[in-house]
């Protein structure tokens, strides 16, 4: 959990995203950080939101690192196509990685670099590898990763020692995201926005 005693406001996002009062009223995301890399307002990639146009749209809120990150949405997609007769273009899936699920977004290089110190997985092996993510992206899924989670992890890794400053680690984590994975400022806000764009919500 973020340490609110050392927290700093960190809302500098969504410049291009229309917000309702409900989202603006969300608690300000806070991350304790001595040096948080600045991101200019409007710099966040929100193309994923604008592309939500299919008839059936779902956002999966994944907070645990396990094979179900793709297994569960996969069962949804199979059921829609095989059980309910939807066509591939009728279904859009967004998978939000936050909590303890964010390391799934990393490339192999960063996984190997940080997994031990970060204790990503019990035995060190990846429950969901890059190939599985890529395969699911080919089926139309969009993966989001929570930047608040990355910031928190950066601080934890810095505190663990041996990996450098938090800001450097955060930059490296962001640079090491798998292709087409989109960083969002806070998953809670992204989930709210997705629902405003008529996504169903599934706690995965």
């Amino acid at each position, binding site marked *: 959990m973020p340490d609110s005693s050392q927290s700093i406001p960190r809302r500098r996002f969504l410049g291009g995203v229309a917000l309702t009062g409900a989202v603006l009223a969300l608690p300000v995301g806070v991350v304790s950080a001595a040096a948080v890399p600045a991101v200019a307002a409007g710099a966040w990639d929100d193309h994923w939101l604008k592309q939500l146009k299919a008839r059936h749209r779902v956002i999966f809120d994944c907070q645990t690192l396990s094979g179900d990150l793709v297994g569960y949405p996969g069962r*949804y997609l199979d059921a829609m196509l095989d059980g309910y007769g939807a066509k591939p273009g009728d279904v859009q899936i967004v998978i939000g990685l936050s909590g303890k699920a964010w390391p799934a977004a990393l490339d192999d290089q960063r996984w190997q670099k940080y997994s031990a110190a970060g204790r990503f997985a019990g035995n060190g092996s990846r429950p969901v590898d890059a190939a599985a993510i890529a395969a699911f992206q080919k089926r139309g899924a969009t993966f989001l990763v929570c930047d608040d989670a990355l910031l928190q992890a950066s601080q934890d890794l810095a505190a663990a020692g041996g990996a450098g400053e938090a800001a450097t680690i955060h930059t490296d984590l962001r640079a090491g995201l798998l292709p087409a994975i989109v960083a969002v400022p806070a998953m809670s806000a992204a989930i709210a926005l997705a629902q405003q764009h008529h996504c*169903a919500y599934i706690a995965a």
Partner: protein
Amino acid sequence: MVFDTHTLGAGLPLVRVAAFLDACEHDYGASATDVRPVITMHAPAYIGLNDAAWARYTIGPRDPATKQPYGRNIFASERPDDPYATIAVPVLQRRGAIFLFCNNVLKSLVSSYARRLNQPADAVRADLIASFLPGVVLVPAAVAATAMAQERGCAYTVIR
């Protein structure tokens, strides 16, 4: 509201659905027809099976008093001495609740029971489907039904 139900802990899904109905009807002034709970059952789907299936396949928790399987579906029992009598599946159905049985869970149960009882999977599947409590609906996947329910205006909650 759709209840995305992954656990059965101490009858939690029944408790939550009953509480939802009570609050809407007694505290928020909704009429019975204003409220429609949909329960998408993942692992606990076996609460949608009848007593015969519970006995035949040794389904469900054990009676803490006897340490033996109940041999009947206590979550569907309205016997006054049973723990969920006032919020049992049929009680909630009469109050408008819809219970959906996940086909992925059914496949898993079929595989398990067929292997354990050395019976053909097709026969076990047919028997289980015939053993659904009245009104229980088989859906391709609980996760898809949960999303479809939201597409039709259901609010969402998860029970884990």
